[in-house]
């Protein structure tokens, strides 16, 4: 199961071990963890609530993982995304990729994050000193995702 949406926290070491333990061909594990920051757009953030679209979320994440596997020579990938209420310093998202050599897992890991940021139906609401607000989508995320649309740089 390469995709999980959950309220519970995750342990990176443990997930890494599970993802690669049966495969001594793995030489590289790239990973990314997204964390709740206590400041966004100049305001203090005291908590973050993550809403998602059950069903579509899992489906879109699985599609993203399939696309990464078809684009790069990787062994496996895992995405864990938390939902519910999170506090500053809490982990939000984990992306893990295993491959024989590092280039592929680095590229696939960054691709997975960029696509997740623009395609997976999650929405963040912040509790700030000036009240609650829905986080706006960032143009920089669309730009980051777009570079993977151009001709493959393999």
């Amino acid at each position, binding site marked *: 199961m390469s995709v999980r949406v959950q309220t519970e926290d995750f342990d990176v070491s443990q997930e890494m071990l599970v993802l690669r333990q049966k495969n001594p061909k793995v030489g590289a594990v790239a990973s990314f963890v*997204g964390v709740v920051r206590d400041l966004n757009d100049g305001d203090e953030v005291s908590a973050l609530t*993550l*809403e*998602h*679209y059950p*069903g*579509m979320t899992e*489906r*879109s994440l699985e599609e993203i993982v399939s696309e990464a596997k078809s684009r790069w020579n990787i062994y496996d990938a895992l995405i864990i*995304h938390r939902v519910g209420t999170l506090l500053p310093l809490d982990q*939000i*998202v984990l992306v893990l990729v295993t491959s024989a050599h590092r280039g592929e897992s680095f590229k696939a890991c960054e691709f997975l*994050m960029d696509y*997740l*940021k*623009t*395609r*997976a*139906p*999650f*929405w*963040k*609401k912040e509790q700030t000193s000036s009240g609650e607000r*829905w*986080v*706006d*989508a*960032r143009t920089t*995320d669309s730009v980051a995702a777009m570079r993977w649309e151009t001709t493959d740089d393999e």
Partner: protein
Amino acid sequence: MKIKVLFFAKLREVFETNQLVITFTESDNKVSDVLTALRHKEGVWAEELNENKSFRIAVNQEMVAEDVVVNDGDEVALFPPVTGG
């Protein structure tokens, strides 16, 4: 034909509902017809679904454009640009 429409995040809050059902008397409808029907409810509906607003559309849990055909029983979802990760 009946189309279920789901709302998420800010749209869910502003519309004060997470879903509703639209019934079309004729068949052969598109996502744009769903939007037109919702805009006819006026107030926040017309405002949030105005063409200059940026929102996303999914049909049966796949993101699509407005010109996609919808069929009886389809699940349409409307939501703001995503902000996970």
